[in-house]
């Protein structure tokens, strides 16, 4: 494994990190420079995984996945990292496109810093995705979180954005303290921070402290994913943060958190006895997340809060697929496909919400369902796009990608004997039809009352994003195989090995 290919895998992180810093120094006046700079950097970073795929498969040695790459266990050169790097980069690309031209109206005064921060946060997300060792995970996670706290609070003038940042900061650091404590216990028990070593040691180690350590780590993971007992931050932060940042958090950050969860739960604690410890509580968390996510969303008036709770619900479905250590290969593939599909639709939905709220960001009822009233008459194309996204989230066929994703996910859940969970997931997705359709009925059935603000023409960036997301969801819906096969291969390569 020549060194050159190893270096390649680190390039995206470096490019984004340094690039972000340079962008932050750009002059504040003109927004176009930092925006196009960010796009260029992202494209460069994106070209790396596609051109030098070798860099990512080097890590998969004969003995299995986790042999140390150039940077020790810190960076894993395996297809999962490749898959998530691509996902994070494309996600960031879309967020940059979404926020182009809208920063002023969103209340973000300094655009270069915003784009710089965005790039650097994505860099840390890539670190987190590829981390195979506890300390790197922690640092990557903290870097990601700090970036998000700042991005949330970037609309400094708006009280809600700062409040969101505050809440996210306090709860984030509070939960990462627990995560760290878990890591320390695990280190104390197994003697090393590398996941491979931990996985080997955990089987033969004294149980009680190990369980305590695993439990606490699980807390940190579930907090970041937004699973129910730890989800209380999600609605407020999603509503408070500027919409592109919310979109970023709902898709890219969730994907990174999912990658962390997969690595920790499957590679770290994947062995059958070890899995036994955390399976019970994870099962309960999945159940609660599905139910609470859907039930509370039913009462939501604000679209962003509703989308927040819907993302909590979808995390519930994903956690259900996380459970079965037995069907990891299939489960992995299903999860990867689901997060891709979910990200596509979330970007679309938030882009439309942004287009609908227009420049009334500071008015409290700006993104209520009432502001969607009569959209089908004032702006039919966007209304049609939003209908497609909502139906996909609900899993009703015009949005076939949602249905296909659910099919993958729940077939894995059923095949690992969690039929009860699958039934609950199914019923919850039926309940979810209610609040998704309520928005659609607002758009199509209710008349555009005079109170609904004039729909202002959103900048080119947002419209491109909406268009591309519609195209992506239709293509994914009709021919899901090209993504799912890749996801299957990726997961098979990394997770199927029974430690």
């Amino acid at each position, binding site marked *: 494994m020549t060194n050159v290919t190893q270096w390649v895998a680190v390039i995206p992180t470096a490019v984004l990190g340094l690039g972000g810093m340079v962008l932050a120094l750009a002059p504040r006046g003109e927004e176009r420079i930092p925006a196009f700079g960010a796009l260029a950097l992202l494209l460069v970073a994106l070209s790396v995984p596609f051109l030098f795929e070798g860099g990512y498969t080097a890590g998969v040695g004969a003995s299995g996945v986790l042999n140390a790459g150039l940077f020790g266990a810190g960076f894993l050169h395996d297809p999962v990292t490749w898959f998530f790097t691509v996902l994070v980069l494309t996600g960031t690309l879309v967020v940059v496109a979404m926020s182009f031209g809208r920063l002023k109206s969103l209340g973000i005064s300094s655009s270069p810093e915003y784009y710089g921060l965005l790039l650097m946060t994505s860099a840390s997300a890539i670190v987190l995705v590829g981390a195979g060792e*506890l*300390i790197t995970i*922690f*640092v990557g996670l*903290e*870097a990601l979180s*700090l970036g998000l*706290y*700042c991005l949330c*609070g970037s609309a*400094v*003038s*708006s*009280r*809600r954005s*700062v*409040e*969101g*940042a*505050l*809440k996210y*900061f*306090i709860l984030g*650091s*509070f939960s990462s*303290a627990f995560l*760290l*404590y878990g*890591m*320390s*216990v695990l*280190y*104390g028990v197994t*003697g*090393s*921070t590398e996941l491979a070593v931990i996985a080997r040691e955990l089987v033969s180690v004294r149980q009680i402290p190990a369980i305590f350590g695993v439990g606490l780590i699980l807390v940190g993971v579930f907090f970041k994913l937004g699973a129910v007992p730890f989800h209380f931050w999600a*609605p*407020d932060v999603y*509503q*408070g943060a500027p919409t592109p940042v919310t979109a970023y958090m709902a898709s890219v950050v969730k994907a990174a958190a999912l990658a962390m969860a997969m690595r920790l739960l499957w590679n770290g604690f994947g062995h059958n006895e070890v899995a036994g410890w955390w399976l019970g509580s994870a099962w309960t968390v999945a159940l609660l997340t599905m139910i609470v996510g859907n039930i509370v969303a039913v009462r939501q008036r604000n679209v962003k809060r509703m989308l927040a709770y819907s993302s909590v619900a979808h995390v519930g479905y994903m956690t259900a697929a996380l459970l079965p250590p037995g069907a990891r290969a299939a489960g992995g593939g299903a999860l990867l496909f689901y997060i891709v599909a979910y990200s596509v639709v979330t970007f679309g939905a938030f882009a439309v919400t942004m287009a609908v709220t227009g420049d009334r960001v500071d008015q409290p009822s700006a993104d209520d369902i009432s502001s969607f009233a009569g959209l089908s008459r004032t702006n039919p194309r966007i209304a049609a796009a939003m209908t497609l996204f909502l139906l996909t989230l609900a899993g009703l066929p015009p949005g076939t990608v949602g249905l296909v994703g659910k099919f993958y996910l729940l077939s894995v859940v059923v095949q690992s004997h969690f039929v009860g969970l699958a039934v609950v997931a199914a019923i919850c997705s039926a309940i979810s039809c209610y609040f998704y359709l309520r928005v659609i009925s607002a758009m199509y059935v209710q008349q555009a009352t005079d109170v609904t603000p004039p729909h202002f023409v959103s900048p080119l960036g947002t419209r491109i994003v909406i268009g591309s997301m519609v195209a992506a969801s239709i293509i994914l819906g009709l021919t899901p195989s090209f993504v799912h096969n890749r996801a299957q291969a990726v997961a098979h390569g990394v997770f199927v090995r029974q430690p």
Partner: protein
Amino acid sequence: MERIHTILAIAAITFAIGAVGVIVRRNVIVVFMCIELMLNAVNLSFVAFSQSVGNLTGQVAVFFVMVVAAAEAAVGLAIFIALFRTARSVESTSATELRL
């Protein structure tokens, strides 16, 4: 050998105190300080574990945790100042516009 045990116990207790502090106090800056307290407790247990395990990884971890804590302090305080600017106070009770 019971040294490690006592240190770990103390760390755990301090950790719990820090946690209670985060929940109880209204002033966000004090909350931040309690979080620092919790991180310190974890650092202590890390060092204790590195003693019992016998390698220095624990201490490297503490090193990195300190870096993180520093960065966190910077960002945290910036947020508190922004909060003060918009909400005129540093009480967490004043920042409850986003709810239900």
